[in-house]
């Protein structure tokens, strides 16, 4: 294909091994991240068929979902046993499979360990223009660097391990253009929650979304990773943000980043990837950044968003009858009444973490709010879970851990934690949680748990007041 192309089309074309008549293409995969939950059956199938991993050097294994966020080694350096036998078994399987197939493993006690989607960019393993996959739907995160990154199922994990390719159909393209400047105290998380509300949970189905516009360019790389992370929450296969000087500065010098002459080559190619003038998208959505307020969710879908100054909507306010029904169910589950002010909603739990918001900037934003303040008495449990061991080290070097601890929050070891509650970090049934994660589904943070998605500053503000709160009040 000649003529002007979008960023997505350029990456797709550069990775096409061959195209078939039925519209599928065989796509080369540059980087494969593996964690303990979706990989055991893939390795098992390889073993049964006597197959090898084609490119172990392009594969990186990191446990994250099941790991407890409490200490993993005792004072003598011995492993502390994991109580849930099934979690222990999945972790043990990864520790056995990775070396057996020649794959590098960042283990539970390594200082680089963390959530796969935090570790990939942090290590320079994830690169702009690369095709990146992982058996996890939030792989879209890496699109913040300008990588074509998406989640895959276990058979596809096996397929990539064995062939370093995937059979895929090309997606439609959507541009979500956010123009203007975000107001003071309005963050990347508020921006992406607002997009979720605008597009709806399935508005991006069948598309790869490219986020463009001055507000997106104005975000830090951390912020861009936060936005792209949630592309899947509007149904998109992947999110993309064109790499620019900020991206290059972020990638340069990281352990796996290109070096020397390779670096110059890489930057030249990355610059060439930007969508050409005149290239068209299948759909374009324009959003005015100035209209975005700190945003929270009221329901059980990430599309159920409202500005913090707003109220719980009435189910009848939705035009679509099926949405009315869904809203009724959501409100019953969430224990909320239409018309209730969001700032009157009390929370008993606060979770700051997950691949959406556990990078150093997120830690800083939360610490700035709680500094010199105390957790409210009605907040029973508030934990801060850094996205990786390196984020943890950096935060500790800046004294952020002390700020959290003095405010009555817990400072934990890195992992997925209460984002999906596969480890012991769960929100009790019927209790509410202000959470910086990405999904407020029924039972996501534990059976019966009620989740309100918010930014790190907003979660910190909720910890201090015990209610959903406009974090801008704390920004003197």
């Amino acid at each position, binding site marked *: 294909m000649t003529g002007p192309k979008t960023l997505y089309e350029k990456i797709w074309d*550069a990775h096409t*091994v*061959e195209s078939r008549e*039925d519209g599928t293409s*065989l796509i*080369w995969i*540059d*980087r494969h991240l593996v964690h303990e*939950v979706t990989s*055991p*059956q893939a390795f*098992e*199938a390889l073993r049964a*068929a006597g*197959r090898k991993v084609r490119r172990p*050097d*392009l594969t*990186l294994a990191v446990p994250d979902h099941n790991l407890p966020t409490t200490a993993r080694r005792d004072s003598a350096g011995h492993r502390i046993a994991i109580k849930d036998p*099934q*979690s222990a*078994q*999945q972790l043990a*399987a990864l520790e056995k499979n990775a070396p057996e197939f020649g794959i590098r493993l960042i283990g539970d006690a390594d200082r680089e360990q963390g959530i796969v989607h935090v570790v990939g960019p942090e*290590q320079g*393993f994830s*690169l702009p*223009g*690369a095709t990146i996959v992982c058996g996890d739907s939030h792989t879209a995160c890496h699109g913040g660097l300008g990588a074509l990154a998406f989640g895959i*199922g*276990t*058979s596809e994990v*096996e*397929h990539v391990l*064995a*062939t*370093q*390719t995937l*059979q895929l159909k090309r997606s439609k393209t959507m541009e979500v253009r956010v123009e203007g400047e975000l107001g003071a105290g309005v963050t990347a998380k508020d921006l992406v929650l607002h997009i979720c509300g605008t597009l709806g949970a399935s508005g991006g189905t069948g598309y790869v979304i490219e986020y463009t516009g001055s507000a997106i360019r104005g975000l830090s790389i951390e912020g861009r990773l936060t936005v792209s992370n949630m592309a899947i929450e509007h149904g998109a296969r992947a999110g993309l943000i064109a790499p620019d000087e900020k991206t290059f500065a972020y990638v340069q010098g990281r*352990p*796996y980043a*290109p070096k020397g002459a*390779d*670096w110059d*080559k*890489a930057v030249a*190619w990355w610059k060439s990837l930007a969508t050409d003038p005149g290239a068209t998208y299948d759909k374009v959505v324009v959003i005015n950044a100035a209209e975005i307020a700190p945003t929270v969710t009221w329901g059980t879908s990430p599309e159920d968003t409202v500005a913090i100054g707003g109220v719980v909507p009435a189910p009848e306010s939705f035009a679509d009858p099926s949405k009315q029904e869904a809203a009724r169910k959501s409100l019953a589950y969430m224990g909320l009444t239409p018309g209730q002010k969001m700032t009157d909603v009390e929370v008993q739990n606060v979770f700051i973490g997950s691949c959406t918001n556990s990078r150093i900037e997120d830690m800083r934003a939360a610490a700035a709010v709680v500094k010199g303040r105390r957790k409210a008495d009605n907040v029973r449990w508030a934990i801060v879970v850094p996205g990786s061991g390196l984020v943890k080290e950096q935060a500790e070097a800046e004294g952020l851990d002390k700020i959290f601890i003095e405010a009555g929050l817990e400072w934990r070891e890195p992992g997925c934690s209460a984002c999906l509650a*596969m480890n012991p970090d769960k929100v009790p049934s019927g209790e509410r949680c202000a959470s910086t994660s990405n999904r407020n589904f029924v039972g996501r943070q534990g059976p019966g748990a009620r989740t309100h998605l918010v930014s790190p500053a907003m979660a910190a503000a909720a910890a201090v007041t015990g209610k959903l709160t406009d974090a801008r009040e704390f920004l003197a």
Partner: protein
Amino acid sequence: MKPINHVAGTAIPFGAKNVDTDVIIPAHWLKTITREGLGKGAFEAIRAEEGNIFDTERNKGAPILIAGDNFGCGSSREHAAWALLDMGITCVIAPSFSDIFSGNAFKNGILTVVLPQEAIDRLLVVAVDQPIDVDLESQTVTTPFQDRFTFEIDPFRKHCLLGGLDEVGLTLSRDAAIKQHEAKIAADLPFLATASAA
């Protein structure tokens, strides 16, 4: 993947509509590390009841399941296909399937047969005490009473199922093209071609 052509024998006359993957295999079974053994968790809620259709002397281990509309809707968990296989089911007949489920079934060598509701209704009656015969090569479902229903199937999927060709095997047969691309990346985009922390 085992080649599949002829599936003959007991068919479980289940018939339920909109059976989602949570019904096929509840979420708490996702913490496993193998594909095997999930048969125990298959249709767990239904099978908790005494005298349920799956555990009768006759239906236990049956190779065919007859279901209603929209079989396999809900989450994308491949465990649903693994659970059916582990129960011994290699063929599901229904008026329609969710896309993700039929894809997962295919990837695991389960034949999904789509027939109109009238044909399903007839099979549900016959299957109560008679065997059903499914032939992929001729794309027909037959009964001992001269019933004969033909079904459509994507030619590519048919080819793969008959040959027991899994997607991995098929892609591996394109090794020359993959090698060529690999070499091109190494030449043009060396910074992507390898990943080392040296």
